[in-house]
């Protein structure tokens, strides 16, 4: 908006503030990435006593860090299930909310409650409900529904934002051309919404993968990765703690990168197709 104007001192002050914030955001994380390559005799703080991958090896071979491999497997599986369910359920719910239906208001508010109720309380409620019904707690049942109480409202809100910019005349044109509801959805609505759906999927996976408060009381006997890691923070006093931090952050970054690259590739391919 300030096109063509000279940049005043305000710009540089704000830019400095923003830079400080980014350092505040990433600085500590960068520090544990560095410290995870601590030498074999090094401790939890600087200085570095040599550089090694000792603590990564220790993490993989030692048994005193709990069930990290199992936790990782369960977290990835839960993340993938949450991804699929969140994307499908939010897509259809988002489409439904474009029209009036009885109960739309209360359902919207219940979804918001699902988002803002402190997670551990919802976890307590779900676990107590399962126990009153005589059902066993397990990461794949009570754990999964607890994750969905967190990912679904997010998915719904993102769908609202995505559908806000969606031009319904495309659907009407398809209908006028004789397409049935299913064909319209498959050939028109979903392809147009696709980048938004990838965003929902990304949120579904990462929110589930990092979820802890809702999981804590609903996970049953076998833990997810964030709970294993949080148990480690209480007991482990070696740089192995940072090594797991580096590994799990690297995985998160990889998922984010893959999502953004696939969005970019799809957009590119579309532009090319539009040019043809």
């Amino acid at each position, binding site marked *: 908006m300030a096109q063509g104007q000279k940049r005043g001192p305000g710009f540089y002050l704000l830019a400095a503030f923003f830079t400080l*914030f980014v350092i505040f955001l990433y600085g500590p994380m960068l520090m544990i990435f560095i410290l995870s390559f601590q030498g074999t005799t090094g401790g939890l703080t600087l200085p570095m006593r040599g550089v090694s991958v000792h603590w990564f090896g220790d993490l993989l071979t030692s048994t005193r860090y709990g069930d990290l491999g199992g936790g990782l497997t369960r977290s990835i599986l839960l993340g993938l299930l949450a991804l699929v369910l969140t994307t499908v359920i939010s897509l259809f719910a988002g489409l439904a909310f474009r029209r009036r239906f009885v109960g739309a208001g209360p359902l919207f508010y219940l979804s918001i409650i699902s988002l803002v109720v402190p997670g*551990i309380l919802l976890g307590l409620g779900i676990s107590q409900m399962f126990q009153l019904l005589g059902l066993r707690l397990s990461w794949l049942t009570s754990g999964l529904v607890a994750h969905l109480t967190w990912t679904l409202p997010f998915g719904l809100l993102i769908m609202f934002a995505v559908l806000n910019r969606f031009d319904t005349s495309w659907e009407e044109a398809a209908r006028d051309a004789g397409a049935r509801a299913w064909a319209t959805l498959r050939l028109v609505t979903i392809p147009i919404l696709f980048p938004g759906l990838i965003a929902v999927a990304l949120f579904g996976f990462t929110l589930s993968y990092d979820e802890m408060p809702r999981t804590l009381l609903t996970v049953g006997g076998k833990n997810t990765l964030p709970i294993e890691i949080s148990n480690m923070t209480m007991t482990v006093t070696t740089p192995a703690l940072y090594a797991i931090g580096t590994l799990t952050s690297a995985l998160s970054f990889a998922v984010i990168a893959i999502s953004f690259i696939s969005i970019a590739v799809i957009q590119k391919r579309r532009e090319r197709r539009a040019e043809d």
Partner: protein
Amino acid sequence: MSGRSSGGGTRLVPYLQVAPLALFTIAFVGIPIMTLLALSFWQTDGISIYREFTLENYRELFTSGLTYRLFYTTIKFALITLVATTIIGFTCSYFLVFHVRSLKWQIALLLVCTIPFWTSNVIRMISWIPFLGREGLFNRAIMSMGLTSEPLDFLLYSQFSVVLTYIHLYTLFMIVPIFNSMAKINPNIIEAARDAGASGWQILTTIIIPLSRTGIALGAIFVVTLVMGDFFVARVMSGGQAASVVSAMKNQIDNLFYPQAAAMAILLIVVVALLVSAILRVVDIRSELAK
């Protein structure tokens, strides 16, 4: 919205489309909260739970001084975090929207702010430990500069480190909604105000802040509910000194005092609901979002 409906059959469509979400939310959000409510009125002797009505759990809760201290500490943390994240979030969004000129850079810098949101909170929390500890980077730095001869103890395992971690974890929840509101402000309004002789400060207080209020309110709801529901940061980063409402509740759960924990949970839900509705009183988010 579509304005066209072909026959009575399509009237059922939204119900079918929304059914999975509706059934899920009722079964796994509505009923669990009702379960907590019921549980909070049941009796226990510490071993088993009896399904008989009692007000004892609430009487115990309200007559204990600890309850008030816990809520005082937790609300204090929430308000300090709220003020800090609002100031930081507003300033960063203001910079991105009104000072960064190209859209590409705006989006890239916003992504830089949001990427940590997708990584582990536990890891981001513990990453402060090597920085703030007695032997940590900060203490080394100020000691080598000769600012202090003794390491500062209040930096880690204190209320300071708890609030600092909250700000670190939750500022993102402020930046994104405020950025969204600000990006919708029509630049012509600001141009017109400037032409009419408004100062930068007047533009900020009479145009930008009022038009960003939906974003601020949304962010405030996230920050307040996240801090009020936290127990892990309060437990680890205070070194076990500061207890939050939820960490006290977690202790009751670990000791199998479920009805007492449920009563505490219901009280917390009521307090959070009051705080959220106070925010909603100031800003009607739903009608603002529909605009």
